[in-house]
């Protein structure tokens, strides 16, 4: 028979040595899955092994009824009733059969009789409730289901049915009350919380729903403790600019701290590095090419140190927005934050280097005088130019990434055209005005006028250059503001 080859119909080892209730689990598995035909077949097989167990008969009838196999159910029910006339199911199942056949009057007749004969059987009341549900009488249905629940106060099944009937009828407020009864009697059952939350949500009481789910998940004590929780939403009174500058300052300081901790020689690298560059240029131009001349070391240092400030600022800022992509998309920090941090970080590193420069110049026979006060405007204009150039390149690179490759080349060209390791006076005088259009060349000339020539640079010429750089910085700040929401998109491309 095909049926016998069906693996799902191969019973576990059953027989006299296995308690019937254990063997019945095999059929109940199908019942739980609501595979009623399979359940009926399994009960049929079990019936052969346990013919004296009423469950194998009446559960099979129930399975046939649920599967819609009404004739099979009726035939089996006749046999079962003959065999077990006093079983409660023997009296109730004819009513179920009648209801399935939509013989409502006949079903009612049977159940009215049962009401008198078997008032303590919960199935009497659930069957009456089913009849009332068919009549659309929610109140009667509720009364019968409550009676069923009260028949077995230690079993949650009928309380659940009681609450579910209100859910099905969409009486959610009533359902919420019934789930509360279930929770009170069976606090360990998750369904009371889950379905109770569903009922509360259906009434629009999200707070109660959340409370129930949290209680279910974390327990009563935890939820009680929540009442005392306070998460103050502290109003931030700082202006966005204040916020940004505070953040730039801290990030630059911490970057320096991090840099210092990475190397054994710590911050001394800030001084060693320019000295190393100086050593290289001295070796090439002064020793090997013998093009240095008198005081070449001072000439070189007054050119190299300001240049390194500009070069490092532009170099580190140029790709800073691209490198900050993750942080920008994580925290929404403004794109200008990244080049500003690099600018400040590089500028702070220049402080000991500039102290070294002034000390070196002084020790080489160029004592400080009133003309050194001119350093302040020169450094200011230098800072403005470096900022404008760095901000402009950093702003452009996310849009034109090929510029990343051109920046080092451009910086090398700028270095050769700025008179770092030579004095601009060595070039043809006709080209001087053109040469000094380069801001770096002009600034190096100013530094040398102060340190070597002991004079004050042309402050008027310096201030208009400073003015142009300041305007450029202002324009760039506006550009950054305008493109604030464009950068997060561009860096993602």
């Amino acid at each position, binding site marked *: 028979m095909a049926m016998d080859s069906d693996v799902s119909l191969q019973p576990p080892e059953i027989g006299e040595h296995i308690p019937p209730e254990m063997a019945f689990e095999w059929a109940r598995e199908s019942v739980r899955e609501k595979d009623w035909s399979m359940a009926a077949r399994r009960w049929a097989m079990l019936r052969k092994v346990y013919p004296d167990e009423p469950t194998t008969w009446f559960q099979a009838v129930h399975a046939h009824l649920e599967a819609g196999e009404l004739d099979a159910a009726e035939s089996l029910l006749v046999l079962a009733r003959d065999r077990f006339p006093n079983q409660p199911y023997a009296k109730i199942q004819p009513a179920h059969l009648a209801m399935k056949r939509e013989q409502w009057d006949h079903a009612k007749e049977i159940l009215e009789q049962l009401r008198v004969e078997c008032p303590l059987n919960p199935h009497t009341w659930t069957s009456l409730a089913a009849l009332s549900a068919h009549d659309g009488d929610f109140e009667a249905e509720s009364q019968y289901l409550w009676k069923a629940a009260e028949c077995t106060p230690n079993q949650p099944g009928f309380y659940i049915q009681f609450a579910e009937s209100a859910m099905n009828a969409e009486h959610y407020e009533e359902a919420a009350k019934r789930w509360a009864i279930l929770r009170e009697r069976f606090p360990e059952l998750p369904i009371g919380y889950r379905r109770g939350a569903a009922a509360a*949500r259906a009434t629009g009481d999200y707070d109660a729903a959340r409370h129930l789910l949290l209680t279910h*998940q*974390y327990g009563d004590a935890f939820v009680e403790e929540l009442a005392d929780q306070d998460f103050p939403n502290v109003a*931030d009174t700082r202006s966005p600019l204040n916020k940004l500058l505070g953040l730039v300052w801290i*990030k630059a300081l911490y970057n320096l701290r991090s840099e210092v*901790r*990475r190397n054994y020689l710590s911050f001394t690298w800030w001084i060693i590095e320019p000295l190393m560059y100086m050593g290289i240029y001295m070796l090439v131009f002064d020793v090997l090419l013998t093009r240095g001349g008198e005081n070449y070391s001072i000439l070189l240092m007054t050119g190299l140190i300001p240049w390194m400030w500009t070069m490092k600022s532009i170099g580190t800022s140029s790709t800073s927005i691209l490198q900050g992509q993750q942080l920008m998309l*994580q*925290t929404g920090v403004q794109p200008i934050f990244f080049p500003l941090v690099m600018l400040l970080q590089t500028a702070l590193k220049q402080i000991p280097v500039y102290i070294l420069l002034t000390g070196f110049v002084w020790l080489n026979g160029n004592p400080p005088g009133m003309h050194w006060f001119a350093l302040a405007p020169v450094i200011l204009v230098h800072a403005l130019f470096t900022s404008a150039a760095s901000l402009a390149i950093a702003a452009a690179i996310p849009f034109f990434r090929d510029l990343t490759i051109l920046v080092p080349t451009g910086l090398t060209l700028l270095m050769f055209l700025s008179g770092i390791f030579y004095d601009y006076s060595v070039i043809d005088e006709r080209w001087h005005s053109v040469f000094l259009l380069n801001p770096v060349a002009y600034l190096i000339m100013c530094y040398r006028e102060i340190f070597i020539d002991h004079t004050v640079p042309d402050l008027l010429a310096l201030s208009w250059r400073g003015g142009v750089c300041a305007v450029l910085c202002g324009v760039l700040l506006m550009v950054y503001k305008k493109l604030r929401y464009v950068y997060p998109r561009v860096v993602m491309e």
Partner: protein
Amino acid sequence: MTTSEPLISMIDVGIRDKRKGNVFKRPSYFDALKSINLEIKPGESLGILGRNGAGKSTLLRVLSGILRPDRGTMINNGHSVSLLSLQAGFDPVLTGRENAVLSGMLQGLSRREVTSRLDEIHEYSEIGDFFDEPVRTYSTGMGTRLGFSIARITSPDVLLIDEVLSVGDQEFRKKSERTLAKRIRSGQAVVLVTHSLAQSQVLCDRIVRIEDGVIREDEQ
């Protein structure tokens, strides 16, 4: 109850991402969000479910104001919104304490406020003496704990959370989930992106499912 005016409204919001081209290839475009209609109400906890690449993270970035939509309308009447970010801006060479200050400030807090709550961060993170050690010496779990401990002290009107509760060791995951539950219970609006339907059912009033940049289901 969540019947008052929404904190944030998204009306027909769309985001079109560009895949950069080059001299040999034209750029291509991709609709990360197609048409999103969504409201976040005060005190509401909203769960967003969806597969990888469905547009969940993009949606959070739009909600947080990091990205502006290409089309549609996004209305936020001045409410603070914060995307809970773990280990935002962490520098592996700096100590846990220093990173806490930096990361807290990056998430919108003032230096004074973060500094005044450093003990709380230290205690919650349960990393003991490692708090004053460089973060590069931390295990992954310790880094996550510290990250969450910092993020939890922010308190915006709308808190956006992207899968962060699924990281870290199990014990700390439970602890962070409890903290989130407390936030929700305290009436803060929370948007939670998760793969776990069970988690969102416990924590959220409302769940939306996002697929191919469109909200497919919106159920309470």
